[in-house]
């Protein structure tokens, strides 16, 4: 499991990176995910202004 980036929607603002406590996300013009470290917390999903991020299993989305 890990977060997925929809590259058609991502505008590369990097706000998801700012809130990732695990160092899972990086910026290469758009958000890039390092699968192995993702803990599915959903913090990045809640932060994205263009709804470009999603967890593979939406039931795991824990952000409030």
């Amino acid at each position, binding site marked *: 499991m890990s977060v997925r980036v929809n590259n058609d929607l991502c*505008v*590369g*603002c*990097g*706000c998801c*990176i*700012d*809130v*990732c*406590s*695990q*160092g899972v*996300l*990086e*910026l*290469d*013009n758009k958000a890039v995910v*390092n699968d192995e470290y993702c803990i599915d917390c959903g913090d990045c999903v*809640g*932060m*994205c*202004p*263009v*709804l470009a991020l999603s967890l593979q299993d939406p039931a795991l989305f824990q952000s409030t």
Partner: protein
Amino acid sequence: MIYDVAVVGGGPAGLMAAKQAAEKGLTVALIEKRGDISRITRQCTMQFILDDGYENEHIQLQGGKIIFTHNGFSVDYNGRTLELFDKYYISPGGSKIHFANPDGSPFSIKFDKGVLLQGLWESCEKAGVTLISRTVAYDVSENQSGLEIFLTSKGKRSSLKARKLIAADGVNSRMTDALGLNHDRQYFTTAPNLTYSFEGYGDVAPGTWKTYMGRAYTPYGVVIVAPAWEDHIVDVYMGGKPQTDPAVIYREVTAQGKLAPFFKDARLIEKTGYAVKVYTSLRKPYRDHVLIIGDAAAYVEVEVQGALMCGYHAARAVQKELSGGNGFAEYTHWWQESFEFNSDEYLRVAQGYALSPTYSDDELDYLFSLTEDKVLKGTYSQYLSPKLMWDAILRHQDRIQKERPEIYAKIQKNRELSFKRE
């Protein structure tokens, strides 16, 4: 190697801090998540604010320099500029509150942030800063002698040691969060913003800034139409709502709201967006070996000129700390004096004076109509603008009380909103 100071974040605050620190002879590493420093991925308005006294400064642009006349330093800037002369707040029915300087001088100047950052980056290089780009600093640990900062770059992990840390990683600061420094701040909201550039917009007015308020334009906050670099292009800023599809907001503004006719022949050129975590400011922006500067410690933002000042003072503070002085405490004194959001009065203005959605469209039209014939002093300041506007409106408070008692009651209630400190 253990650096004297690590700087996280290559915005105006971080780059300025790194450059100044290196020029003082300190060993400096700067970590930045972007690969290309000059590529601005979060559109913001990027204005130099010319108000005398704004952030206790009065900046001047002269001979390729931004001169900080009170703080006593300057920063090179050779990029393009665009002057702003008129600002309007516009009600649903089209009543306007107009801000402009009586002598016709500009009150702010749009600048090219990419050029500014590129220049600072090159100055850092020249000064001997170890520049680490396309790298994310995601965590930090502290011990008695200093810090270890944890990095990831292209999936590879590493760490870096430093005696002091300057966290300049912006409004959504990861370092501040990792250090637990946000616990004492009041959190308000996470506000998404969407920015679109259009060609062929029907109401292009160069040199003019227009903020549209009310549900007639959008149910999601305000719409701002501001001049872009070329006369025939406008930048349109649309307030968003968490977890709301930007396409819905876009449609509301461009096809359904009152501005729709202006978008009839408009062509979308570019879109960007970002989200801002809104906290009260860090009134004491340091702990042990760490100093938090710029937007990372602010209520929303310090603006680019404020960030440059933070960087300038942060480098001095770190140098002093490393030689046994109280640099961070001195920085804090300057920080509290210089930035309006460190006072309760500011938060009262920011919180209690908000127009939309507090007032209905009809109420906004009434309030705006009271001051329509007057021109208020030109300012870009997000503090002074609403203050001047409300001062002008409240000159008619007897009339409001008589004509529209329900609006008067609402105003009184909002003015009494006192800010709760934890």
